[in-house]
Each structure stands twice: as structure tokens, then as C-alpha cells.
């Protein structure tokens, strides 16, 4: 009984690996460039990054 369940388990492992091997992957130079691009494009709309002024951030104290 244990024999056939290890075969079944092993089949699943092979199937999973075949699935992963079939992925179309992209070079890091390309994907990293895209990640960088996304950051830069959205930088000005990122309040924690730009340190949005008190008038627009509800959590920051109002300037007297």
C-alpha cells in the first residue's frame, strides 16, 4: 500500500515540476527595469515617499 502512494505522490511532484518548467520566464534585466519604471512613474503619487504636506495628510498635525 505504501508503495503505490509514494508513486502517486512522486507523480504529483513530477507534474508540478513540469508545470513550472513550462512557464515563460523573462530575464531579470527586463523585469527589474520594469519594477524600477513602475516606482519612478508612481513616485509623485506616493505620500509616504514624498512626505506629503500637512494640508493633504489627515494624520499630520495642522500647521498653526
Amino acid at each position, binding site marked *: 500500500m505504501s508503495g503505490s502512494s509514494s*508513486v502517486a505522490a*512522486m507523480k504529483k511532484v513530477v507534474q*508540478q515540476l513540469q508545470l513550472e518548467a513550462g512557464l515563460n520566464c523573462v530575464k*531579470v534585466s527586463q523585469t527589474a527595469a520594469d519594477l524600477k519604471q513602475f*516606482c519612478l512613474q508612481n513616485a509623485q503619487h506616493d505620500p509616504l515617499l514624498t512626505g506629503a504636506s500637512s494640508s493633504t495628510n489627515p494624520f499630520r498635525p495642522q500647521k498653526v
Partner: protein
Amino acid sequence: MSPRHRQMATEALHENETLASLKSEAESLKGKLEEERAKLHDVELHQVAERVEALGQFVMKTRRTLKGHGNKVLCMDWCKDKRRIVSSSQDGKVIVWDSFTTNKEHAVTMPCTWVMACAYAPSGCAIACGFKQFSCLSLPSSWDYSGLDNKCSVYPLTFDKNENMAAKKKSVAMHTNYLSACSFTNSDMQILTASGDGTCALWDVESGQLLQSFHGHGADVLCLDLAPSETGNTFVSGGCDKKAMVWDMRSGQCVQAFETHESDINSVRYYPSGDAFASGSDDATCRLYDLRADREVAIYSKESIIFGASSVDFSLSGRLLFAGYNDYTINVWDVLKGSRVSILFGHENRVSTLRVSPDGTAFCSGSWDHTLRVWA
């Protein structure tokens, strides 16, 4: 040997051959995968970001402190209205706060229960909680503490003072071990859960029916995060098996797996574009995994950081990664350059949970010091 014995011996031999050939096929596939991944690894993320302007000094302070829990805060979530927060604690309390005023708007207490996880529904009209219950023999029998074990319950939020919030709860999920994380999908109708039983599951809130289960982790699943809605129906989970796994919600299939951490993964969070995700681990590092390159592309670590990272989240543009640690601090990382840009002090015990607000104006941290802090 009798004919029957001969047959059994032959079958066993066939099984051994099949097992052996499957094992060698697995080995050769693994080898091929590593070769292909290595070919794609032509550069590091921080190299690509070399000419990006360095970030200046950050002034981030505690702007609000939410006090009211009687024990360790274990989880928190923001409402889509960018101001309400739900938090849950080891004292069995779930509290909904107005973070602008620090007022408590709702509270429920579950006796003898750790409320391990909590989540706000997209509509803002309900919250979900995941439990780990302990037996309690000395409580009055009139209290309804039945059947909370390993369940996820949804509580509609009502402002009617006469309504008992706990009375209208709906039990949705059922696992065979504790609930570690829960999240609504794009609507109030479905909930995704992660459990100490090693699985994740998708449930229909109305009927409580199991829609899909996700098997593959070799140990407790500690965290999950849904992909931003534009990128489709996937989610990522992290576990005590040191693996981060990406799942197709419809098929239940694991589509990608990453195993580079050296200890439990406590937190996973998608990069805002959906093309990558970050993880925080007991190995004291946070890492960035690129889904299209199918590999880890950055490690956020320092020799001086030796305590586990419990929770991570990105700023709106994905440039900053906020990470809460077991040494009571919050480190702010430059995602592109891999360097730390700030260290935030304030909590008096482990940081256990951390989320950036929906509009990115602030982030909230919860701690074993019983408090939550909103930073901006």
C-alpha cells in the same frame, strides 16, 4: 514461490522501477529549471537601480496611538475608507477604530480565544476574524463560546446600540488547525483563509461552502496576500516550510514556488504592480521575488538585524518596504537599491502586524505591547 507470491513480487518490482524512474525524471526537471532560471539571472535589481536618485532623509513619526487591547495585538487591517482600522488580540477582543480620532467604534470579545487574524470587508460593512480557541471550563454557560475553534467568522458591523454584534456572526471557514490569516477577495462574498493545518481555502460567505482548497505547503501556512485585482486571480502564501507559493484561485493549482528563506515566512505582500511580492521571515531577512523572472531578485538584510521580520508592506509606488520586526523596530527599505533608509522606534515589544493605508498616506503597526500606532 506460489503464483500469488510471484505476482506480488513482480508488482512490487514494477512499483520500485516506476518510483525510481519518476524520481530521476523529477531530478532532471529540477536541474533543467535551475539551468533556465540561472540563464535569466543576468543582472541584480540594485544594479539596474544604480543611477536612480537616492532617497533623502525620512521624517516618519507616530501620529496616533490606539490603546484599548488588554493583550498582544496579533493582526490589523484597514477599511477601504482609509480611516477605519480593525484589530484583533490575544485577549479575545476585536476592535474597530476611527484612526483619525482614535475612537473605538465597535468591540467584540470572544472568551478564551486568540483572535489570530482579522480583515475588513471591501464594503466596510463587515469584518472577518480567525480564531484559535482554548478550552475554558470556568465560564458561565450562558456565554456563547461554542464552535469558535479553528473557524473564521464574519460579523456585520452595525451602529444600532441595541444589537449585539456577536449574535449576528456567520461561521464561514473550518480548518483542522488554527486560522493564521484571512482576507476577503474583491467582494464581501468570498473569503480566503490560511491555516496551521498546512492548507489555504476559498469560501463562500453566504453558504459557508468550501469553493476551493490549496494543498502544497509542507507545514503551517502563516500568511497570504491576494494579487492586485488587475493582475488576475492569484494569491501568494508563506509558511513554516520556508516556502512562498503562488496559487491559481480557480484551479487550486500552485503555479510558482520559491524556497530561498532559511526559516518560517511570517508575511507576504504583493508589489503594487502585481509583478512581484515581498516576504518577511524569522531568518531576519525580507526578500523580493519577481514573478516574471521566476526568482528572488533582492534581499533586505543587515548583519545588525538578527530578529525575525513579522510583517511587511509596500508604500503606494512600491519604492519603500516597511517591515516590522521582533526586536520592536520597524525598518524602512529602499526596494530598488536594497538599502535601509530609516529605522523607527516606538513600540515596546514585538511588532506583529503592519499595513499601509489604502491611499498610502500612513501605515499602521500592531504590537505585543498591546497598542497600535499610525505612522506618517
